[in-house]
């Protein structure tokens, strides 16, 4: 199936010569949730702004459901909804009117039942006649989402939707994204919160310094790059790793009270059985054993650093 969003060799250079995007290519399948991760200034927002028509690409092409974003901008843009990073709303307008405005702006006729449905889904119906300035920060973010959904887009961009919101609202946002997926909406979200990507994304793309470093299925990525550590707590402290255990590349833990063994979860033999046998043979007594899985955050940090080292 053709991807719903296809980005090919997109470059964006600003007048001052700064190149924010250096030939980004990315295909996004219909109905998936893609998390775009990257440090500040990596090019996340520039990429979104380029797809949405807010900035013009210097080179490359972007198509949305086959429609070129420059030549067929009407067809392309009417399929896209954008929730910006900053809360930008007309403070004196009523909630319901600002959502109606967005619907009209994107070419859809007035349909009160559709607007009501969106406002109810986002728990905004009771606030529909409030002026935006009377709402809390979290409610304003909901209004931004309601506006982005007002014209029934097939692709939704969420640019750091949960930046600065409390835990409860963040969970609500995740639920909303889950519901949208059930409705077949493709979602691309940028985030600083790795656990957010881990919790809701199907695929992860990592961008740094205007280049995509990696695009991969989240679970595969976790398996492929996920390393696990076995931590063996000892009853008696050691001053160094016994020579008999030299083959395992063990690291002596704090105060010599533990041995840390790093192994690859994807390999057929992890070596744990043999290690534990050899530990016993070496005459060491175990107090406890625990394992730790590396998180997406570790993967992300190592990827970004690897890119920097290569540069």
């Amino acid at each position: 199936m053709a991807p719903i969003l296809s980005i090919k060799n997109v470059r964006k250079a600003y007048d001052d010569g700064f190149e924010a995007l250096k030939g980004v290519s990315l295909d996004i399948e219909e109905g998936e949730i893609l998390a775009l991760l990257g440090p500040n200034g990596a090019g996340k927002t520039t990429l979104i702004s380029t797809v949405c028509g807010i900035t013009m690409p210097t080179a490359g092409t972007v198509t949305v459901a086959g429609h070129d974003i420059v030549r067929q901008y009407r067809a392309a843009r009417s399929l896209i909804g954008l929730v910006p990073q900053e809360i930008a709303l007309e403070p004196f307008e009523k909630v319901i009117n600002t959502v109606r405005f967005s619907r009209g702006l994107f070419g859809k006729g007035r349909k009160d039942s559709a607007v009501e449905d969106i406002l109810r889904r986002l728990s905004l119906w009771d606030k529909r006649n409030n002026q935006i300035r009377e709402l809390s920060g979290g409610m304003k973010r909901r209004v931004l989402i309601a506006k982005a959904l007002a014209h029934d887009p097939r692709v939704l961009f969420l640019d750091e939707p949960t930046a600065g919101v409390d835990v409860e609202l963040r969970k609500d946002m995740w639920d909303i994204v889950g519901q949208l997926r059930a409705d077949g909406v493709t979602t691309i979200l940028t985030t600083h919160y790795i656990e957010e990507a881990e919790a809701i994304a199907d695929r992860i793309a990592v961008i740094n310094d205007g280049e995509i470093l990696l695009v991969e299925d989240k679970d595969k990525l976790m398996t492929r790059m996920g390393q696990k550590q076995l931590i063996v707590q000892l009853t008696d402290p050691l001053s160094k790793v016994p020579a008999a255990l030299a083959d395992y590349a063990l690291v002596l833990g704090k105060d010599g009270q533990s041995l840390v063994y790093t192994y690859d979860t994807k390999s057929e033999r992890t070596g744990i059985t043999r290690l534990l046998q050899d530990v016993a043979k070496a005459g060491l007594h175990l107090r406890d054993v625990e394992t730790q899985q590396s998180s997406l955050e570790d993967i992300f940090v190592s990827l970004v650093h690897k890119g920097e080292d290569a540069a």
Partner: protein
Amino acid sequence: MNWSAVRAIYVFEMARFFRTIAQSLISPVLSTSLYFVVFGAAIGSRIQEVEGVSYGAFIVPGLVMLTVMTQGISNASFGIYFPKFIGTIYELLSAPVNFLEIVMGYVGAAATKAMFIGVVILITSFFFVDITIQHPLAMVAFLVLTCVSFALFGFIIGIWAGSFEQLQLVPLLIVTPLVFLGGSFYSISMLPPVWQTISMFNPVVYLISGFRWSFFGLADVPILTSLLAIAGFTGLCLGAIWWIFKSGWRIRQ
């Protein structure tokens, strides 16, 4: 054409006007009444008549023009500057709309507001002086064209402006002097010959002259010249806006 976008922008902008209807109306009505008191009653009693028309009545077209020009500029410039200032312009730039639809929405609303206030001023003037409108259709045409063209000009100022100070700068330094020196309160023929020649370079002269002709049949310049001037000004503004959206100047990087 994305007509629902035009409608959405228009309705949204008009809602802003109706939210502040009291301020929108009280201020121009009050200042116009003051003009009538000062120029019409106090000074006008010494001037008597200008080309057969009482001075109080003579200044009515100029006052209406003065109001619609400044209102058209301020409404349209604020209308497009405010989304830039608070960041909501992102929605406009990412929407499936072209420059004409954006302009029709914003400029249409700004021109409507200006015309609304212009009509209120005209009605107010009926309480102060006796006036008859000889060419009502021409009067409406001049009023509409002036509202639209100055709203277009205001739209350009709104896109250009990088701060609220700049938003005030052009109306204050250029438009107000041109309007005051454009014959709002006098006939160009009352000026010394040199100033008459200089005045011919002021585009506002043609608008006020044409508008005044629709009231009294009196004009400083031929009516066709007035129409051409206003059409040219409208075309110039439209061309500039077309270029702005094509190049993305000050709005799209």
